[in-house]
């Protein structure tokens, strides 16, 4: 089977023999995977990781080791956020969620979905609601993570929410939180997002780097408004600084995956302002599936480009271009011998 491999030699194609399943594992034939900011950070080496990238993907179960999981055979599945190492005391008593050395596909200790096949523990996959398309399925974990924050950060209804960044993650966050009843403003750089945001009644502020800095620091215009909830979907240290400046003291800051780029970010204002920061990656997947299946929220509008898996290496390059909001890799021709 073919997969993308990130190692000391950089990012390249690799062809490996399929390995036999270990107890409790399932084999998944990948149907589609997203290229997110986090994946690009892995591919570029900003996040240290050896293996196959791709933390957001959807696939079909083709083989199970334990017949007890036979009901998964043929089902479309997505990965749950993480699973335990299986060796520590916490894992052995069944509390895999609390493992101190978790496995996260495409990020930490486990191969991700930029591959024809993935092998994972059966307990770490979530069967998909069959109504959902592959595109929507890929975005279920992100949707779930943002929904999860409504509970984690105890966000009161109607609160003003500011989203910094209008990439794929920022758009999903903005539209979802607006659909969930919050008053959302997205700060972005790209005018072509306007139509989508307007459809979800999201306020949109378009700015350039220079004007944003001038405005944030109060050099132009009135003192900028403060927001009790700020979402950092910028993926840049500068965007992080904007978030810390614009969150109200004692407010909450939701940090989306694109911020995990390994670049040091200043933390002194977190303590000074008494801010709470929540790392967002995944959440209660079933709730997110139900909301997408209801038709009231459709995250797939952020996929402006679908690339064949064969062109994955070029797709990583192109995914950085501004007109591709988020890129979907589609496995058009899975290896028939697999």
């Amino acid at each position: 089977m073919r997969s993308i491999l990130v190692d000391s030699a950089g990012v390249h194609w690799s062809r490996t023999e399929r390995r036999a399943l270990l107890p409790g594992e399932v084999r998944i034939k990948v149907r589609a995977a997203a290229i997110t900011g986090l994946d690009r950070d892995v591919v570029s080496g900003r996040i240290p990781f050896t293996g196959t990238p791709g933390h957001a993907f959807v696939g079909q179960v083709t083989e199970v080791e334990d017949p007890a999981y036979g009901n998964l055979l043929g089902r479309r599945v997505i990965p749950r956020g993480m699973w335990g190492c299986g060796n520590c005391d916490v894992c052995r008593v069944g509390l895999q969620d609390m493992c101190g050395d978790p496995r996260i596909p495409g990020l930490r200790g486990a191969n991700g979905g930029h591959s024809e096949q993935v092998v994972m523990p059966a307990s770490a996959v979530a069967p998909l609601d069959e109504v959902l398309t592959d595109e929507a399925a890929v975005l279920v974990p992100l949707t779930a993570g943002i929904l999860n924050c409504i509970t984690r950060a105890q966000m009161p209804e109607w609160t003003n929410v500011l989203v910094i960044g209008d990439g794929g993650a920022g758009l999903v966050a903005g539209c979802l939180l607006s659909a969930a009843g919050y008053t959302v403003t997205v700060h972005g750089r790209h005018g072509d997002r306007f139509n989508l945001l307007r459809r979800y009644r999201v306020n949109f502020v378009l700015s350039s780097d220079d004007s944003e800095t001038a405005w944030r620091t109060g050099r132009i215009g009135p003192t900028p408004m403060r927001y009790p909830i700020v979402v950092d979907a910028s993926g840049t240290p500068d965007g992080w600084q904007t978030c810390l400046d614009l969150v109200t003291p004692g407010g909450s800051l939701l940090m989306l995956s694109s911020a995990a780029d390994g670049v040091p970010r200043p933390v002194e204002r977190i303590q000074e302002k008494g801010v709470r920061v929540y790392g967002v990656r995944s959440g209660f997947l079933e709730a997110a599936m139900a909301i997408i299946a209801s038709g009231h929220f459709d995250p797939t509008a952020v996929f402006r480009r679908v690339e064949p898996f064969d062109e994955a290496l070029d797709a990583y390059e192109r995914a950085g271009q501004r007109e591709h909001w988020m890129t979907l890799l589609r496995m058009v021709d899975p290896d028939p011998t697999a």
Partner: protein
Amino acid sequence: MQALVLDGRLRIGQLPRPSVAAGRVIVRVDACSISRTDLDLVAGRRPVQVRPAVLGHQFVGTVVEVGERVDPAWSGRRVVARPNPGCRRCTACREARPWLCEDARSSGLGMGLVDGAFADYVSVAVETLTHVPDKLDDEDAVLAYAVAVGLEAIAQIKGDPPQRVLVVGDGNMGLLLTLMLHAAGFTVSTIGRHPSRRELLWRSGIAFRAVDDSVIQTPESWLELIGEPFGVAVECAGRSSGLEFAARALRPRGQLIMVSDHVGQPGAALGFLVERELEMVGVGCGPLGPALEFLASRAVDVLPLIDGKYALDDGVAAFQRAGQRGSLRTILLRRPRPEDV
């Protein structure tokens, strides 16, 4: 009056005694603690807006003069005061958390803009005062500021004792929080850099490990060091490496409570927040009233945490002592004067 003046460098100087204004009182300073913020201001890591400046915001004193529109009952009372009066308009002030008010921060007493308490007398806005119970000595009461931070940090913890809590850092804040968490019933483990702290903590039955940088830089030894991952970690180390260490000791969706201010630090790579879906809470200050009550309850013996006592005349030496690696808390005490009687 005598004062410790920061004018490029620290020196003892003579300044006119502040005159009382409406809504304010004059407090005779009985004890004032040298805090991390003071050291940062002197070292230039934080900006000082006025020169010469008198620093000092963690003090206890006696009201000797009250201005117009102030209840005369304040006269003669022992008090502590929060540095920020608060704007009374912003969300933080309306939620009774004036220490988070951004408007007032710049006018913080003893923070480099308004003269503070490393002096014989200081002028304080009456709404910032809190009465000190008689049974508390000056040396106890002057720790109210640190205890307030500790109580606020403990209030952030989700989950009840006796769950395990990791404290990273064994400076004065780290040790104080360790003892407070222990008193609250949590199972505390503390990691720091000074083997000499062991005796103080082991006396109370608290697990303590001293580590050096080499351990922090090899990820394999972390889990071995801490055993099972923690649900809550409190970071009091004041450096980015401490923050990253605390984060790695947490289980997924754990809670990282950040108590030190990280001024002058390069910042931290925050990928761990997303990777493990952590919650990171910053705690800067808290209300002084409950802190004084806590001290009066004697749940924690705070006196071993004060390892340097100086008279105001020796203020420069006191600052040198406080800035040394491994020193705990240095306080400046008022030397009794003939006019006291």
